[in-house]
């Protein structure tokens, strides 16, 4: 598989967006960044596999879900609960960013050791997918607000999607599964939004969510 210059640029912008989300405290900006990442991912199948029906459908689906629908839902949720910033993450922003870069460096240096098909060696797809997945994990672990954790989950899913692009010709089922996971995220978000409206939370800190159960 020959990766074009366009694909490489797209993958690089995905990584930059990962870094931005790890280092930024403003939730609205983070959601917008994830939306942009969704759009970039929508272009990726076309950039990697060329113009064909399969990649077009994949791209359009991704654009609708990740570029428009889910960020729209998140922005609405944020408007309703009136929060703007992730105030007190478990780990500081600079530290998270540092860990993120460490992850990226490890992913790039270690990706070639993985037992991949010969065509996938030396490419950017595998390391970028790994970086995105682990950055998503990092975001999930280090943030307190439920919304940022959803963002982390989305980022994790984006990483899986990049991995799926690698295989989309051989394994369409895998991609379908990815799309289903998208739906799941949508429902997940809706659940949180509805919960908040019903219970009239003053905060959506996950610490308080667990405290309520006890």
């Amino acid at each position: 598989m020959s990766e074009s210059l366009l694909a490489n640029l797209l993958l690089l912008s995905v990584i930059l967006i990962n870094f931005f989300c790890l280092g930024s405290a403003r939730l609205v900006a983070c959601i917008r960044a994830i939306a942009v990442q969704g759009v970039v991912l929508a272009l990726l199948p076309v950039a990697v596999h060329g113009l064909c029906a399969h990649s077009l459908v994949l791209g359009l689906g991704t654009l609708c879900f990740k570029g428009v629908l889910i960020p729209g839902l998140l922005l609405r949720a944020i408007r309703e609960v009136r929060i703007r910033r992730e105030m007190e993450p478990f780990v500081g922003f600079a530290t998270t960013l540092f860990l993120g870069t460490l992850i990226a460096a490890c992913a790039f240096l270690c990706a070639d050791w993985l037992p991949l098909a010969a065509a996938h060696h030396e490419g950017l797809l595998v390391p970028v997918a790994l970086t995105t997945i682990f950055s998503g994990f990092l975001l999930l672990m280090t943030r307190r607000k439920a919304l940022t954790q959803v963002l982390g989950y989305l980022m994790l899913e984006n990483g899986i999607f990049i991995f799926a692009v690698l295989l989309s010709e051989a394994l369409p089922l895998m991609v379908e599964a990815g799309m289903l996971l998208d739906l799941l995220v949508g429902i997940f978000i809706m659940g949180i939004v509805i919960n908040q409206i019903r219970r009239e939370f003053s905060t959506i800190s996950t610490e308080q969510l667990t405290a309520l159960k006890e």
Partner: protein
Amino acid sequence: MLGRIVLHLLVLLILSPLLPGVIAKTKALFAGRIGAPLLQPYYDLARLMRKEFIFSRTTTWVFLAGPVVGLVVPLLAAQLMPFGGLGASLSFRGDLVLFVYLFGLARFFTAASALDTGSSFEGMGAVREVTFSCLAEPTLLFALLVLACGADSLTLNDLLGPALAGRWHSGQAASLALIAVCLFVVVLVENSRIPFDDPNTHLELTMIHEVMVLDHSGPAFGLVLYGAAMKLLVLGALLVRLVLPLQTGHVLLDLLLLVAGLVGLAVLIGVVESTMARLRLPRVPQVLVGTTLLSAFALVLVLR
């Protein structure tokens, strides 16, 4: 070689005050004003040079050493830096380290001369300036390392030599673009430009670089301004060469390209200053750590 040294000095001495003028004009146009003439910094320098030296009795020789070293360092650093297509006049293995730490020397003396006055405001400014620049330094070094890895050499002349244009078309384009962004941030920080410091502020508490030179006046202040303009030109030349690696082979055309690039950079700085608000003080280190990590990532991309 002597011709080159003279040419570099002439470019530096004659052109440098133009850049602050271009920045001020851009900002004025953005604000809907006509603004001061483009050559205003030259008039300012001439006015300051005609005044007399006045020194406080509490200061020592260090107070004057700050502006003098601040003026001499860009003159020396300019000799190591290729100006556009014009190669550097002095070049030896490892000169990029000297290039970075020459500016460190200038910073040390500026901070020392600020502390020499005994003013608490100047002490605060010195602390901030030193903190920010020690965070900006790794970015600059990482960026130079990326270039060094690509060029497989440790002299600035080879790093920014004719081969640079070819590297933009190879697989290294991505990391070059990353370090270009990082270097732009370094240029803004090192020259105390708006997202990091406001050169026009008049409140001692919020100043960073400007507060350090509050007690300098007359010719000494002129030296400070002149040195700052030259520093902008030398660091700007690095960025311009990275982004515009064209080389015509003709001295005049190369010179013209350099000047056009520098004026473009000054306009860009003016646009950034007009459209962005200043960052809160605690945010500045965060941004600088971010650029350091970004440039480190660019290095990983190259090493891979």
